[in-house]
């Protein structure tokens, strides 16, 4: 019989489990129910007691590796913690969120315990065998894979499962502390902080319902023969301010900054969507001044409701990539739209 361990970690506050961790718990419970398997949960944290209260009713056993060293998301300490949790429970299948913290270490952990790993898993099915769905070629080819090898580590993409909500009628789980039996390697890395964009430039909002993508057209010459970058910046930031949308960009627009061309000052490579950028999850997406070719659109794989504003009626968006394409000047449309939204709010 398969046995399951769900690995979780705390967020920046150090006290609450991340949303991705709670989603992995849901996935673990679903898989355990399908397989009739036992499930345990492991927590990596400096102090795990508070985090464990979020797991009331989730699993019979909750383990924790806790020490000051685990306050920092760092390869050497996190890999040792996850390895210790696996060795204490010896599960056949390990589920974990595909967070930056666990993506940094989990392949190494799988290697240390003689297992195998698959990442960016979007669905898990279990009948006679366990099958994982994941994407290849940057969301252009979808495959279902299975492995005979155990332990099998599966990192789950964010947003693929609902977050687990503790059962208020259940007693809060008391984590059983796992001692790290192997000595930690010399910790040569120290996390010194998080660098966030300036408050007024924070335009990436993972939890927004709407994604707004700015393409290279915003910085191109307009009908008067001039570029209007300042106006474009004002329109885009105005739109983001009224809608709370997250801002994405095509690669070409981001690259212009590196090449010294006129750019929108608040865009960086972190905003990049597509083949060489992010594949965010928002329920709606609005593309502006972007031609909608495949390298851009692969970043829209998980945007179900898509609209685009483009001057080109033959752009990629019009060829089955968007639900609605408006053939119009984005400067005019977004200007009017900002007025309407401002009047509504």
């Amino acid at each position: 019989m398969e046995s399951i361990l769900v690995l979780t970690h705390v967020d920046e506050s150090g006290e609450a489990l991340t949303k991705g961790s709670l989603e992995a718990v849901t996935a673990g419970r679903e898989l355990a129910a399908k397989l009739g398997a036992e499930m345990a949960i492991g927590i990596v944290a400096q102090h795990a007691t508070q985090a464990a209260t979020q797991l009331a009713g989730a699993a019979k056993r909750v383990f924790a590796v806790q020490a000051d060293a685990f306050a920092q998301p760092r390869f050497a300490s996190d890999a040792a913690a996850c390895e210790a949790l696996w060795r204490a429970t010896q599960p056949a299948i390990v589920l974990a969120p595909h967070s930056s913290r666990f993506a940094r270490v989990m392949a190494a952990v799988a290697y240390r315990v003689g297992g195998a790993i698959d990442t960016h898993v979007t669905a898990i099915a279990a009948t006679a065998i366990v099958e994982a769905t994941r994407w290849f070629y940057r969301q252009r080819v979808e495959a279902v894979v299975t492995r005979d090898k155990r332990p099998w580590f599966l990192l789950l993409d964010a947003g693929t499962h609902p977050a687990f909500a503790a059962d208020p009628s259940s007693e809060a789980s008391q984590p059983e502390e796992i001692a790290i039996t192997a000595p930690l390697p010399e910790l040569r890395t120290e996390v010194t902080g998080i660098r966030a964009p300036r408050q007024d430039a924070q335009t990436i909002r993972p939890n927004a319902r709407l994604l707004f993508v700015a393409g290279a057209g915003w910085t191109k010459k307009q009908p008067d023969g001039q570029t209007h970058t300042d106006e474009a910046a004002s329109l885009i930031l105005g739109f983001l301010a009224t809608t709370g949308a997250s801002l994405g960009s095509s690669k070409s627009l981001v690259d212009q900054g590196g090449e010294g061309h006129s750019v929108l000052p608040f865009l960086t490579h972190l905003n990049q969507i597509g083949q060489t950028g992010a594949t965010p999850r928002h329920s709606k997406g609005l593309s502006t001044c972007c031609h909608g070719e495949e390298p851009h659109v692969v970043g829209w794989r998980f945007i179900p409701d898509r609209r685009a504003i483009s001057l080109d009626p033959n752009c990629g968006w019009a060829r089955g990539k968007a639900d609605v394409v408006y053939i119009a000047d984005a400067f005019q449309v977004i200007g009017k739209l900002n007025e309407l939204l401002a009047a509504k709010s």
Partner: protein
Amino acid sequence: MPQPLHVVVCAGIVPDPLQTLEPITTPTGPGLKNEMVLPAVLDPWAASALYEAAALAAKNPGSKLWLVSLGPKAKLQQVMMTVAQKVPFELVPIDGPIGGFPDAHSTAKVLAELIAALPGLDRTKLLLFGGWESASRGAGVTLQLIGEILGITDQFQGVDQITFREGGSFEVLERVEGGKHQVSVCLGAPAVLGWATGNLAEPRNNPQVGMSNMRTIMPALQKASSAKLDANGLRYVSVNLPKQQRTTRVEKNLTPDQIAAELAEWIGTES
């Protein structure tokens, strides 16, 4: 003070992003239709790693830069005709399968053995570079596994910047959730850095660099050994293109006011 570094960049080759991909079944497992004739490029994030590595090597005299790449020799040669003109490096090729479907663990094992055997490599000066994910398998595990096999306990993924300090320590910016960077300071090499985009633009083609590189690249390709990758228990149940065709409504005759009104209603108040 400059630090002589030994930078090894692991970079695969992938189909040009503009190509249409169609999965097929081959005798050895899933593959892409006409895979061997699809135009290929150096994996984009790994290419960022190469450019950052070259900039780092240029700033630190006495450094060495290897580019380790696994792929069919003919495709490697084709891609190197362009890549070789960008920055100076020593190619270490290994002849093997192309594509994202072979198992990452087997790929990592082959590459780790190759790197461990590099003549002249000083592991105390080693910075192992690559893309944090490939544009083919996109798993983000191969580089990490290579580092683990080589016993490197300082690893960073989603790197956008590395800044060296006095004494050989360096500061790293790694991408984390929410459009932020985690800042870490590492005491120094050896370390693994899986690069995201970095901060450098693609270097212009330099024919002189190209000619210099090609003098060693062609013999290296001729001497490249072959690798067979184990499936490692990985089986594909299905491989398909997503159903992505939408019925698009193209609105050509609406005024900006009408479009704005429609969009305002579509956006609603919940976003």
